[in-house]
């Protein structure tokens, strides 16, 4: 029982990170119907920039402080937000009218550019990450379950950001515009919504969340490497599909389910199969309910 609770705690913390990444996928899909393959690598970039900010540009990682950690995160958010903006502006926008396949290939191109560009600059080997003044071994016990402070931070920060995001999407002008664009871009444009601006904003927002997720992930696993975005990125995408792609609450729910499923499989079956469960879930959801748990089915208008 204690065991199970222990795994659930880890699963929730992992799921919160997946949910943060999944939000970026789902928002971009909502406004553009595009799977932004590069998103997982923006997440990696977030972690990597965190490493540069804390270990290369400053000596913050040697004596981490809370203030320093927040500053590092803000720097990483700024860089990722800019990257997201540039990718959309120069990669996807020129292709907006052309077949979706082209944007998808471009997305993969950017994904590889970030991964292998990262490998070229950063080096292929993992490096230790320690921007936060706590380590995963700092824990406290509740009812026999040990909870690490990092897990607590992951969940706390993610939930906080999701609340903020919810406010933005459902209670702000730009959020209303985002929803309008996701319903019908040409009509939104006729109603005076600046589509380009909204799409840029969506990319920046998603990338900023991915940066935070990157810092949290790197803090929990204490390392950074150029290919670290691949698997979490894919799993976050599966989370988005599971919850119903294009649906913000769905991404949160999907991330949580996926994190729990992965943690339970790796504890009770074998950790080697933890990557397989995500794709098993994906195939299952595509077979049973392709629109996802919270998504609505859509029929193409003829």
């Amino acid at each position, binding site marked *: 029982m204690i065991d199970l609770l222990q795994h659930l705690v880890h699963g929730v913390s992992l799921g919160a990170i997946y949910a943060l990444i999944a939000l970026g996928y789902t928002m971009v899909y909502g406004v553009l*119907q*595009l*799977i932004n*393959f590069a998103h997982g690598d923006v997440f990696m970039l977030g972690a990597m920039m965190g490493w540069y900010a804390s270990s290369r540009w400053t000596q913050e990682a040697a004596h981490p402080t809370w203030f320093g950690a927040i500053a590092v995160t803000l720097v990483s958010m700024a860089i990722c937000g800019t990257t997201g903006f540039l990718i959309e502006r120069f*990669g996807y926008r*020129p*292709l907006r009218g*052309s*077949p*979706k*396949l*082209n*944007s*998808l*290939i*471009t997305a*993969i*191109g*950017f*994904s*590889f*550019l970030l*991964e*292998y*560009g990262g*490998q*070229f600059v950063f080096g292929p080997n993992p490096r230790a990450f320690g921007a936060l003044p706590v380590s995963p071994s700092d824990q406290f016990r509740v009812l026999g379950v040990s909870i690490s402070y990092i897990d607590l931070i992951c969940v706390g920060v993610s939930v906080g950001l999701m609340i903020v995001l919810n406010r933005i999407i459902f209670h702000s002008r730009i959020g209303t515009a985002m929803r309008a664009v996701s319903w019908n871009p040409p009509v939104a444009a006729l109603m005076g919504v600046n589509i380009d601006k909204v799409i840029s904003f969506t990319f920046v927002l998603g990338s900023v969340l991915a940066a935070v997720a990157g810092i949290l992930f790197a803090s929990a696993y204490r390392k950074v490497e150029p290919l670290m975005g*691949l698997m979490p990125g*894919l799993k976050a*995408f*599966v989370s988005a*599909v599971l919850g119903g792609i294009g649906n913000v609450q769905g991404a949160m729910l999907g991330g949580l389910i996926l994190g729990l499923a992965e943690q339970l499989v790796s504890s009770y079956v074998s950790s*080697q*199969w933890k*990557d*397989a469960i*995500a*794709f098993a879930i*994906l*195939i299952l959801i*595509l*077979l049973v309910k*392709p629109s996802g748990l919270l998504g609505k089915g859509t*029929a*193409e208008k*003829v």
Partner: protein
Amino acid sequence: MAGLFGGSALQRTGRAVRSWLPFFAAVPILILIQEEIALNPALGLEYAFQNINHIGIAIILAVSLNLVNGLTGQFSIGHAGFMAVGGYVSAVLLMRGPQDDPYRIFFVLAVLAGAGAAAVAGYLVGKPSLRLRGDYLAIVTLGFGEIIRVIIENTPFFGGAIGLSPIPHRADFAWIWAVAIGTIIVAKRLRDSTHGRAFLSVREDEVAAEAMGIDTTGYKVRAFVISAFFGGVAGAMSGAFEGNLAPQSFTFVRSFEVVAMVVLGGMGSITGSTIAAAVLTLLPEYLRALANLRMVIYSIALIALMLLRPRGLLGTRELWDWWREWRRARVKPAERPRREATEALIDVKGATIRFGGLTAVCEFDLEVRPRELVALIGPNGAGKTTVFNLLTGVYAPSEGTIKVMGRDTRGLAPHDIAHLGCARTFQNIRLFRELTALDNVRVACHHLTRESIAAAVRHGSLSEQEEKWIVERSEELLEVMGLSARRDELAKNLPYGEQRRLEIARALATGPQVLLLDEPAAGTNTREKADLMELIRSIRDRFGVAIVLIEHDMKLVMGVSERILVLDHGVTIAQGLPRQIQSNPKVIEAYLGEKYAKEHAAQIAAAGSQS
């Protein structure tokens, strides 16, 4: 008439053998090159031939992936997974098989077993994900490739992370290149056959393809399975050539290299894929100094290509297209017997469809008899196009029954209904934009053909006969529609009115007994409208089809139709002869509002009392 069925079995086999002659001629040449040049130690070309063989394997991979990504317009990025399945299955067999295999019979069997396993894997992956539109396939194939790698790495039977070795060296230059040439021939024949056009139509517009009788999901799955099969062949060849297999060589990067070859060469171009496979295999050899930057260069090149030349270097064209244009055979058409239905072609009873709370069409009844000309009119949003969507199976009715040619359409896909003999055009033109006018029509002939994919590959006589018949038929239809001069132009380049007529030609090519025309006159001027009226009548007379017409132009409707149904808010408010409809107060009210209708009625009454 024996010719239609290809004559005797002996003749058929003879033709199949003859059509593969170039291939059989190539084999001795390959063996000669192998014996005299590759294996000649004096020349010292071992390293060069290693590269040449890598090119051969890359060609098999790129040409087969092109079937899915290029021709069919789907996006698979897990080709390395299928390669791994084929490679490992055949390697296990080869390692446990006889040590001595002088005629390489066991080798061929092992390759086929590996390829078969890859094809099965392709079916299992493709079936659930290809049902869905869009980009899910990309993710699923990516995931599949990774799962396969994880499974292999964790299975001692397959050598785990270390890999399998030694695999008997059974594949050499001659074998690899014979298979590569064979793959190219198969791909070319598929592409040139009626099945190839079915693949293309899926890429261009799935909804229109379904309406023309093409089982889009079925064709996507077929393309995917064939592609996986050849992916497996490439894996098997690679294992038997290198003598070892390791999971590290089947990562996402490998899949991506193949995608890059297809994209660079031109989506849909076989020669393009072949050339790109050669270039991208050799390039890294000459860029060894830049090995670290190789993937960076790849990705930048890919992005630049998409932005500057999105169709790839060769686009959908082939090298052989340029010299092929002047030799084009013309043969007499083979007529097909028409089935004449005597009962109602379309019989709709109480069809109702709701979208959420909105009842778009309510209790709709319609009976269309042979050679009838029925018009469906009504204000915007009355549910006219929805009726067409119900008839053609795009939507299923919430209530009521729809019978086409006496058959209940419940559970039938749009392409099944097209097969029954009910063809349509679209309000917002849905041509296969990147195909020529002729090809647009030819696609629609697809479901009338009987040759199998295998027959197309063998290039038996049946296929040739049908091909000729299709071309004749399509040219005739283009002529009827006055589009003969536009035969080889891309559909997207035709003027608007001609696009509409091409849509009608395409619908007629499916051999319908009922033709559903959705606003054929939209956006045409008065003179064109008069021509169109003539055309619609002549289509009816010439092809003996019944026509159901949605149209806003009252003059056209009144002039051409024999019976009119009026829809308003999904309800049939009137039906009858044109004259009756014109004076029906309900109809006038629906179109012009209550107030005007009353005035109008008063006018009519006044006119009546005067006379």
